[in-house]
């Protein structure tokens, strides 16, 4: 009997040991081989995937500046609030977070509570939260000792500091800061920049691991744009265009384009019926917004309800897209009589007409058996080419077209850039519709000659007009002058791009002179500005295509005025365009002319254009009121007499205490300066009378009767039948005697 281990125990133990070694240790070694050597790589990949957090560093979108570096669109840092509900383990935590965030973010608490119950590490709660709100959240996190659960991620938001200002050019961006319209869309790539990446090793709760595993690719901020747009010019365009839209009850939006004729730089481009790019989805037009809002809601439970709902959604989309549409670039129209400056230039260039070529208008022209009427049904009778243009006489231009023939007409038509897109750096440029030389039969040629029957964009029209003004050189219009990187270095500079010379400088000069005469005493005189040598042409386009399509009950019109100044050295071209005016008049001269004049009157002095008066203008010129305050009455009277100004004295003193108009203020020649000699007279007031709807003479006498002065603007000085249509101080306003009121005159002639 063995004291120690028996043989059987030996055997059994060794058997057990062998089994244990082979099965037990064998199995785990096998598992280790399988996991580490066979599947190791794929497991490691998956491990790295979870350990490496790839964070996108957003790039700041570049700014958009006007030509004087005033910011029109900017990006500012905002924050995205992200919940990490998977880290929240107790209902108490969820409750605290929901209560706190609902207060800070102004969101529904229940909604946040729903978010906190998701099993996710990334759940966006709210985007584009301002920095102040972010700070509040951080404070809240600190107070409540919330470590994980709420994350704040940097992002950028687009701001348009001037609201709807220049909205059509600027466009707008979407929720991910992508450009969706306007320059934001056209230059999206440059503005966006390149997002950076931060690849870091993170532990399971998302904080950094002490590893060298960090790779940062800095974000490349977007480039900024410097525009050719001048904020001041743009401001005047928008101001008076809006005024014109209201005064003329314009139904289908309006546009105005101001272009540097030499460089093609667009100084301003206004579209009314636009939007606020800060809130692009909101329908800006109050009537349209109300119409859409008042449409029945519908509901998605019934088939009928679905249709109603769909109709409303559709109406909203249509309204949004309408307000985003760049009328100056994306819409086409018949340019109408404005185009006569182009046809005229062709004729003069080809030598088929000159200033003195004689024409005869009997009220209509018969072309291949078709009668085409002149706007003046009685006819203009015998007239020269110049008179024909100033009368905007259709038969004259039908004749010019006929003399040119289809071949030559189309050659110039194409040379003026009307068969191609202008290439402006704005999205959605429309192509034109026209007849080619072969398709131009005599009737088409005749109608095209005075600007009907072919469609071009307003931008194409002003570009062609700029070529007429600019020695015949057709330039490419552009909106962006420079692209700057985030440090302000110039990345790209846009030079003037001259496409071709269409007409000679001589013809350009002569046509400018004719157009200046037209804008002074011709049919375009509503745009006249003393001293500024404005050249212009009116246009009233019939919307024939729409009329024929039967969509409209009555014929609708586009009233436009296109011109440039100064005529002897053209600098700026301006096209003003009202689509479907419903006011007193729909004629270009009456509707667009005064607006053109008001814009030019502000823009030209801003651009530093000097007034040069003709002798005739000198006679009618306003003078600056001399300073007579403080002088003895006699001396004051003498001083005023020297300038052939009248005076009216109030009070019994012998010294002038106050004068109206004040020193330096302009006053019409032979105007009356009111001199006040005692305190009592100083408080004296008169009432502004009605000065609208009068001839110049009537207005003058009404003003004299009331004891005030008037200055006049518009067609009063050159037109015989001009009527006042506006006054700068409203009827019934109490003013000091002698106050100067500006009265606008307009000539309501029926020129197409």
């Amino acid at each position, binding site marked *: 009997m063995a004291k120690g281990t028996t043989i059987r*125990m030996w055997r059994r133990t060794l058997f057990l*040991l062998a089994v244990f070694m082979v099965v037990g240790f064998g199995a785990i070694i096998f598992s280790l081989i399988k996991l580490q050597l066979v599947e*190791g790589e794929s*497991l490691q990949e998956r491990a790295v995937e*979870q350990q490496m957090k790839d964070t996108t560093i957003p790039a700041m979108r570049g700014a958009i500046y006007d030509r004087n570096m005033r910011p029109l669109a900017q990006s500012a840092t905002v924050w995205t609030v992200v919940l990490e509900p998977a880290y929240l383990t107790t209902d108490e935590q969820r409750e605290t977070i929901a209560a706190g965030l609902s207060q800070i973010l102004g969101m529904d608490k229940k909604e946040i509570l729903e978010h906190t119950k998701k099993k996710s590490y990334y759940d966006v709660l709210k985007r584009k939260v301002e920095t102040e709100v972010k700070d509040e959240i951080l404070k809240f996190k600190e107070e409540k000792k919330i470590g994980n659960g709420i994350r704040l991620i940097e992002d950028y938001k687009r701001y348009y500091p001037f609201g709807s200002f220049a909205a059509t050019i600027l466009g707008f961006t979407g929720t991910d800061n992508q450009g969706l319209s306007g320059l934001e869309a056209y230059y999206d790539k440059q503005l966006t920049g390149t997002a950076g990446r931060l690849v870091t090793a993170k532990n399971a709760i998302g904080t950094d691991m002490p590893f060298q595993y960090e790779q940062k690719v800095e974000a490349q901020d977007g480039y900024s744009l410097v525009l050719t747009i001048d904020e001041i010019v743009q401001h005047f365009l928008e101001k008076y265009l809006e005024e014109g839209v209201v005064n003329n009850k314009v139904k289908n939006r309006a546009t105005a384009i101001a272009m540097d004729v030499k460089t093609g730089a667009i100084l301003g481009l206004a579209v009314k019926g636009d939007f606020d790019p800060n809130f692009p989805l909101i329908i800006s037009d109050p009537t349209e917004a109300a119409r859409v809002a008042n449409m029945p809601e519908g509901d998605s439970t019934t088939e009928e309800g679905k249709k109603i709902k769909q109709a409303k959604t559709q109406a909203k989309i249509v309204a949004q897209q309408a307000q985003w549409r760049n009328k100056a670039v994306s819409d086409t129209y018949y340019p109408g009589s404005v185009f006569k400056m182009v046809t005229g230039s062709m004729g003069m260039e080809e030598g088929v007409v000159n200033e003195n070529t004689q024409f005869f208008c009997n009220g209509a022209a018969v072309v291949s058996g078709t009668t085409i009427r002149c706007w003046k049904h009685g006819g203009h009778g015998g007239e020269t080419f110049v008179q024909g243009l100033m009368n905007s006489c259709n038969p004259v231009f039908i004749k010019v077209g006929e003399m040119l023939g289809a071949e030559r007409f189309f050659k110039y038509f194409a040379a003026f850039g009307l068969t191609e897109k202008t290439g402006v750096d704005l999205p959605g440029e429309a192509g034109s519709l026209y007849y080619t030389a072969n398709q131009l039969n005599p009737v088409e040629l005749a109608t095209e000659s005075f600007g009907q029957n072919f469609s071009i964009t307003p931008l194409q029209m002003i570009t062609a007009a700029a070529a007429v003004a600019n020695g015949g050189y057709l330039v490419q219009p552009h909106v962006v002058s420079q692209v700057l990187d985030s440090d302000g270095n110039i990345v790209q500079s846009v030079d003037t791009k001259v496409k071709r010379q269409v007409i000679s400088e001589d013809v350009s000069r002569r046509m400018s002179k004719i157009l200046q005469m037209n804008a002074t005493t011709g049919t375009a005189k509503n745009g006249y500005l003393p001293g500024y040598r404005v050249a212009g042409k009116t246009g009233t386009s019939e919307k024939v295509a729409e009329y024929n399509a039967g969509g409209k009950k009555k014929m609708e019109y586009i009233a436009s005025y296109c011109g440039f100044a100064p005529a002897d050295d053209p600098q700026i071209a301006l096209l003003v365009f009202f689509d479907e005016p419903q006011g007193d008049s729909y004629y270009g001269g009456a509707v667009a002319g005064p607006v053109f004049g008001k814009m030019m009157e502000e823009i030209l002095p801003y651009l530093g254009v000097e007034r040069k008066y003709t002798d005739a203008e000198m006679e009618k010129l306003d003078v600056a009121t001399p300073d007579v305050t403080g002088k003895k009455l006699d001396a004051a009277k003498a001083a005023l007499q020297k300038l052939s100004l009248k005076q009216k004295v109030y009070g019994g003193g012998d010294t002038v205490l106050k004068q109206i108009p004040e020193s330096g203020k302009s006053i019409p020649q032979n105007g009356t300066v009111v001199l006040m000699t005692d305190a009592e007279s100083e408080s004296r007031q008169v009432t502004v009378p009605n000065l609208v709807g009068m001839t110049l003479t009537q207005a003058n006498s009404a003003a004299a009767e009331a004891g005030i002065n008037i200055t006049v603007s518009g067609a009063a000085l050159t037109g015989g039948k001009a009527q006042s249509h506006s006054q700068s101080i409203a009827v019934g306003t109490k003013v000091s005697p002698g106050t100067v009121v500006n009265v606008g005159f307009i000539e309501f002639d029926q020129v197409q």
Partner: protein
Amino acid sequence: MSGESRRNPVPKPRQQRKPYAEKSAPEPKQPASAKATPLTKRVRKKFRVFSVRSGLDMPFLFLVLVLVVIGLVMLFSASYAYAYYNYGNSYYFIIRQVAFAVLGVILMLLISYFDYHHLHRFAIPLLLVSYAFLVIVLFLPAVKGVHRWINLGLFGFQPSEIAKFAMTLCFAHLISINFKRMDTARYGVLPYVLLLGVTVLLLIREPHVSAAVIIIALAGMMLFIGGVPLRWFGAAFGVALAGIAYLVLFTSEFSYANDRVVAWLDPFTTEKNLLADTWQTRQSLYAIGSGGLLGLGLGQSRQKYLYLPEPQNDFIFAIVCEELGFIGALIIVILFALLVWRGVTISLKAKDKFGMLLGIGLTLQVGLQVVLNIAVITNTIPNTGISLPFFSYGGTSLVLLLAQMGVVLSISRTSAIEKT
């Protein structure tokens, strides 16, 4: 004392007493004089509390110390990120573990001087104490839903750890006494099944299935070596199968385990309600896989940064695999295998059956835990809480383990083995 005094003076009449006094023939290093020494004197000498008569087994001691040191290094590496984030102190775990390790090693060496035969007397009382703990723990508040810990403030312990040792000791005690009657049901099977049944029942009440499994396996192996006829194992196997079938089919007792089985079969499942169950296993596999052949380098684990939950506990070996690679992991597995082999060899050559059974039981317990632990972290078997000896954090557990190693070393002192 009474038990001892009763046995001591009259060793001869009792069969099982004899081996203590006899000198086994093949032992080569015993001095010749020892054989001639009168039995009574020898017996007295052997029953001294500390026996330094022969040396302890250096290879086994060496293996234990190497594993303790590697274990501490890896524990520090695996735990410092977790400790930093959860306790604000990277040294939180390692400081405690080192202290217990030092205590444990001292205790191990002391126990190696302690004549393991004294343990005969402790076998039954210790078992009763361990039962008491197993009952007490059921009435203590649950930690993470289970009643496994008895916390004594400064330190805590798991009664199941005590139970493992108590059962091993008790089985070695009973088998060595009754080894001749091991083929009878009355002496060879019933008492053990009874003891085992009570223990397992108590453990399942906690519940602590993994400890029950280890104890059942351990008991089975000891009974097998002890000479229980194979037919009993066949019967036990049948009963086990029936029991498992019953539990799976008719109870929801192990419903929490069902999800674990699903999670085990597809640790990368994307099913949401299993994500929490598979998270630990998935992270463990990522860690092991990331190690590759050579590992990321000591201290370079990334999975320990809160991906792998409690990397200092049961899943520490995943971090070892990640940092030391397959080569490092293999070396450690081989060290464990050597430890088991050496422990078993020492025990086989022990002077008596008690020493042999005790030594083998304690050694296999370590081996079983190693194999099961690594099987869990490699997802070879479903996830269940088994710590890795010498590596996993746990002070009392480490001290107890080293104390048990001390018993093996004590056995080695009288073992007829080459001790280098």
